[in-house]
């Protein structure tokens, strides 16, 4: 006892232990309360999100029937009508956008995965920043390039202009995600191939890209899901249409446009179509997102076996 009293450090430690013991109950209670608040936040956050999905499913499912998928839109006030032209438009626009953005993005991702210099890091940062640029601004760029009248532009609203805008939105996602996937390929694999005398292009095509395939598929599906859900880039590019258009050089309808344009109308029939389209879009986007995860895990497992 006398020794402890003589040592100021031990005395201080005893004092701290005493305080900790005295306050343990209070601190424990406070901690419980704090954790409760955190869990409550989780519940509060989940309520609107769950409510949103429930509403979309209930209201949307009641709008679904054969005509909804196979018919053209009807004018306001006339019941019935469908979104067949919007489905075609969305598919055409997004397929063109993806067909351009995927090879471009994976190529750029390959470039970034090989390079660590200043230029590469600037490009990396610009891709990140581009993914945060509002889609409406990207839409203005597409409008200037392909819709406004000047040589080299179509000079009118069209599906391609929408593809251009959506491709730009997909691009940074594909670039960054494919770079990550490619960097995950063990260096020894490509080194072994190089040691066998393979050229770099062959190594990329036969070793690196196939090994990185799960990651690449995830990247592509995520980018397509993101692009397919965008509305703002369609507003003044594809602009919407009441007719069936197969040619991307013409104005086209698209599912997000239907939701926006019908949703803000006062006619119950049009609003119903909007809910049905919203369910369609949510299902499509969730299938792409969930699918990307499943494909990635499945392929990884197969590879390991």
């Amino acid at each position, binding site marked *: 006892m006398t020794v402890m009293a003589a040592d100021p450090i031990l005395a201080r430690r005893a004092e701290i232990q005493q305080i900790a013991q005295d306050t343990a109950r209070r*601190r424990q209670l*406070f901690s419980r309360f*704090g*954790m409760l*608040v*955190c*869990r409550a*936040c*989780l519940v*509060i*956050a989940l309520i609107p999100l769950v409510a949103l999905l429930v*509403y979309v499913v209930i209201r949307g499912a009641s709008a679904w029937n054969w005509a909804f998928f196979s018919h053209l839109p009807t004018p306001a006030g006339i019941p019935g009508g469908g979104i067949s032209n919007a489905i075609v438009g969305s598919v055409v626009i997004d397929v063109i956008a993806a067909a351009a953005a995927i090879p471009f993005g994976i190529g750029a991702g*390959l*470039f*970034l995965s090989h390079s660590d210099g200043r230029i*590469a890091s600037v*490009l990396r940062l610009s*891709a*990140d*920043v*581009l*993914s945060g*640029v*509002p*889609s*409406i601004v990207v839409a*203005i*760029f597409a409008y*200037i*390039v392909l819709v406004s009248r000047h040589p080299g532009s179509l000079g009118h609203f069209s599906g391609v202009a929408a593809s251009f805008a959506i491709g730009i939105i997909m691009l940074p996602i594909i670039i*960054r*995600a494919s770079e*990550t996937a490619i960097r995950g390929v063990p260096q020894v694999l490509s080194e072994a191939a190089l040691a*066998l*005398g*393979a050229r*770099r*292009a*062959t190594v990329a*095509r036969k070793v690196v890209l196939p090994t990185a395939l799960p990651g690449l598929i995830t990247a592509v599906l*995520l980018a397509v*899901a993101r692009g397919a*859900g965008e*509305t*703002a880039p369609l*507003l*003044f590019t594809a*602009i919407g249409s009441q007719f069936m258009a197969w040619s991307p050089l013409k104005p086209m309808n698209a599912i*997000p446009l239907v939701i*926006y344009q019908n*949703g*803000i109308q006062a006619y119950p029939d049009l*609003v119903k179509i909007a*809910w049905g389209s919203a369910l369609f*879009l*949510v299902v499509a*986007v*969730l299938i792409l*997102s969930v699918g990307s*995860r499943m494909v990635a895990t499945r392929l990884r497992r197969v590879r390991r076996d």
Partner: protein
Amino acid sequence: MVLATTTSPRQGTSRGLRRLLEVPDGAYRGALGVLAALFALLLIAFVTSLVIQSRSAFAHFGLSFLTGTKWDAVHTHFGALTFIVGTLETTLIAMFIAIPIGLGCALALAFATPRRLRVPLGTAVELLAAVPSVVYGLWGLLVLAPWMRIYVEPGLAHITGGRFPFGGAQIGTGLLLAGVVLSIMVLPTLVAISRDVLMAVPGTEIEGAFALGATRWQVMRKVVVPSARTGVVGATTLATGRALGETIAVTMVIGNSPAFAHSLFSTSATMASVIANEFTEATEPYHLASLIAVGVLLLVVSVLVNLAARLAVRSVSRERAIGVGIL
């Protein structure tokens, strides 16, 4: 070449294609370099085309484009201040709601959820980030707006006796609804990134604090949050950037009136919503140039915000920053 000649015969049909892809190393690197250069060119074209097309608005209206409050297509008088303020107001309301709830969610997901629930809840949050914004807009307009009009707005007005900031007509759509919808939209992003950042805090530090007798709350408050602060700030900034530029959902619920809001219930407009709303109707050259100029302002703001956010998140961990790029 060795590999090309020893591969299985079933690929023989595409020999011509393979020959074509069998390029020398220099050409391969060159091709990738060209792709990267094209990407850089695309970005440069993006910025310059917007600047060129908006120049006439900036030249004609000068500084009054930023400080003017009149947005009048008939008399060709364009000042964007009301939209700048509208954007700031909706973003502020959204972040005021989303930051505390989002941080609570992230903490709960990282440290206060049973292991069994952690993965499904985390996946659910990430999937909700994938729901398109137009769906949030539709739900906000058709479900949330009537609900706000009938229950929330009268209640809030009762608190202040119908004075600022809860005065004026209660119509559901407007500044407050736009803020609420935005907060719901940015929550998944905010939660997913800050949860990742929080979970990246080294386990030894947390265990050390527990060993000293700290309670769970004290560990979070004194160890986890301070250590993850930069990353959480980055996640918040990223979510702010998203709220600033969100277009379609806001356009659907804000009411689209180009006037200063004098109450949280007032209809208003943001930079993004005015572009979405008026772009196709802008036949007069100055009107179009002014809308593009608003786009340039939005571009500048979003680039600055995102640069700050990326640098903050990236400083936490390189690996994480790449994951953030996907979200």
